[in-house]
């Protein structure tokens, strides 16, 4: 065989034509179940609202979507009449969608539902009238065209999956961002109302009031003392414990690790009363130290397990090399293991800090005098005692989240490293 021979084409056995399905049709088939799911959700919502017209129209729409999916599945080389049927049914579906929307109350969630139900009725005919699809369903696809189509499919598949990913992410972002935007709106609106248009009036009065109030700064100070104290104490206990669990085999090791998890299996309320009695006996009610102790103990199991998991990934040969280089056991830990575990330590620290910063129940129970409130308890008191100061509350919530946001941004690099543990390789 000389190298000049033409490459035998797969087309000889007509493989390309047999394997080719336009990507538009493939994508629609793959993603259509999501549409049907959302449309069914709309039925459920209509039933819960008791809106009879909307129930019937949305049920019809689900049915039409099911028929469309069925027809899409039947679509094949040389099935032009099925394609034409799809056109007609899409038209009916579009009409039904408009009717359905008119039946509903027209909130933003209804607009969302309508979009999900109606857009496929537009997309399907558009996809169905693409030149390649038309060629395909009319059965006039040549082998060359099929090969071209397969090549185009690869590009298109990537684009379609990109679009879908962005669609999913957009939903996630909306779900996360909406409450935040809402609270921002409340915080900058004058007065204490929860309604009104978005950003119709803007004022800084709530922020000014907070910043000039003495108790806000007192609560902030308390929160910082408790959170930082918890972080330091928690790390001081969890790091040695995690290392010991990771490296040494001792009697009672496995039961001890299990016991740590056991504590996590009960809801926090169960330990509330015993904790209270202990704190009372120790005279630690209405002190920051009491909270620090309680939080450290609660955060400990997770911290120990997290650190143990990371220490496990530090190769033992590294420690042995350090021993040969003249380190003592303690030096091995401080100079080799700990520097390598900094990402995990950072994640653990952040976790303890957050848990303490956000904790409400224990703080509410133990520290009853107002000058010992932490921020979450103080915030709650804004609602109950002074006649529901929603504006102040919203502004304070934003201020309280600020340190957390700053911490996350500062630790971002560590967080990614720490959460994807196991990256330590010589």
């Amino acid at each position, binding site marked *: 065989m000389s190298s000049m021979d033409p490459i035998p084409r797969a087309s000889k056995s007509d493989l390309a034509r047999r394997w080719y399905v336009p990507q538009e049709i493939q994508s629609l088939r793959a993603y259509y179940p999501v549409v049907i799911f959302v449309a069914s959700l709309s039925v459920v919502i209509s039933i819960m609202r008791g809106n009879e017209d909307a129930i019937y129209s949305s049920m019809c729409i689900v049915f039409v979507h099911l028929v469309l999916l069925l027809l899409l599945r039947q679509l094949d080389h040389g099935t032009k009449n099925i394609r034409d049927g799809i056109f007609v049914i899409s038209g009916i579906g579009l009409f039904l969608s408009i009717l359905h929307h008119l039946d509903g109350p027209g909130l933003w969630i209804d607009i969302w539902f309508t979009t999900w139900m109606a857009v496929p009725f537009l997309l399907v005919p558009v996809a169905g009238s693409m030149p390649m699809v038309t060629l395909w369903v009319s059965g006039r696809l040549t082998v060359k065209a099929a090969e071209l189509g397969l090549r185009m499919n690869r590009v298109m598949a990537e684009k379609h999956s990109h679009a879908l990913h962005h669609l999913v992410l957009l939903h996630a972002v909306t779900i996360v961002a909406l409450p935040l935007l809402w609270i921002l709106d409340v915080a900058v609106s004058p007065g204490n109302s929860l309604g009104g248009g978005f950003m119709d009036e803007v004022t800084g009065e709530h922020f000014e009031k907070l910043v000039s109030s003495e108790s806000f700064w007192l609560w902030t100070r308390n929160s910082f003392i408790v959170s930082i104290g918890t972080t330091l104490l928690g790390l001081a206990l969890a790091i040695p414990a995690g290392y010991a669990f990771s490296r040494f085999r001792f009697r009672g090791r496995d039961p001890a690790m299990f016991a740590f998890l056991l504590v996590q299996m009960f809801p926090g309320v169960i330990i509330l009363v015993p904790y209270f009695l202990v704190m009372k006996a120790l005279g630690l009610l209405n002190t920051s130290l009491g909270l620090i102790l309680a939080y450290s103990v609660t955060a400990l199991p997770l911290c120990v397990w997290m650190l143990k998991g990371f220490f496990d990934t530090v190769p033992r040969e*590294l420690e*042995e090399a350090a*021993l040969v*280089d003249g380190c*003592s056991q303690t030096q091995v830990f401080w100079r080799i293991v700990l520097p390598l575990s900094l990402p995990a330590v950072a994640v653990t620290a952040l976790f303890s800090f957050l848990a303490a910063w956000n904790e409400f129940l224990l703080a509410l129970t133990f520290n009853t005098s107002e000058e010992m409130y932490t921020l979450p308890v103080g915030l709650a008191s804004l609602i109950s005692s002074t006649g529901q100061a929603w504006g102040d509350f919203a502004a304070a919530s934003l201020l309280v989240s600020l340190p957390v946001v700053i911490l996350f941004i500062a630790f971002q690099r560590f967080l990614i490293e720490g959460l994807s543990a196991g990256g330590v390789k*010589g």
Partner: protein
Amino acid sequence: MVNVIYRGVTKRYDNGFMAVDNLDLEIDDGEFLVLLGPSGCGKSTTLRMLAGLEEVTQGDVLIGGARVNDLPPGARGIGMVFQSYALYPHMTIADNLSFGLRMMKGDERPDDDDIRWRVGETADLLGITAELEKKPKQLSGGQRQRVALGRALIKRPRVLLMDEPLSNLDAELRQQMRIEIRRLHDELGMTTVYVTHDQIEAMTLADRIAVLNEGALQQHGAPMDVYRNPANPFIEGFLCAHLDDIVETANDLFGGEEE
């Protein structure tokens, strides 16, 4: 320099597994000894007991006539090269090399100028001067191997220990490093104990090979002596038959061309 003596050394693990059984072996001053055997034969354990990374259940290990059973690894005057190199990932190459010097105690610890000079000297010796400011992650496998060697050599150890140091390298690099290791030994002249399961490595590197199986020493002697006069069927199968196989394959491959 010094000699190394295993006197009736036994290692039994907590689960009852006998890794090394009553080993008697003497390694002469400046000798290159290769511990050879299949996996699980106790060769690594033997080496690690000499390093102090594994406790001796029974018997004595002597370096330069002194019993070292209870000395921590850092006090034994040894350097060790690990199979995975075990370079410290968070330190630069220079810091990796100098770590052992910086950890020395009291009067033994060289001053900073001296340390810097010795890092330079060692880097020169191994041809890694250009990599000193890099992190281990940025180096190729062969370069990491050199750094690992340098880290073991920089303290001027009395005994150099190597635990399958070449098994992570590709064939060509392995050949190169084999020559390099032998050259370094001849140049620096320290007593060397080298663990491997590779018969060719053992035959080409060693002054003397000691073959182990199931925790017991089978035979020791100059490579060719052991090959010519195998003491038992195990040696015949593990060493002689294997080498003969290689020779035969090579002859089959190249024998035809000459005709």
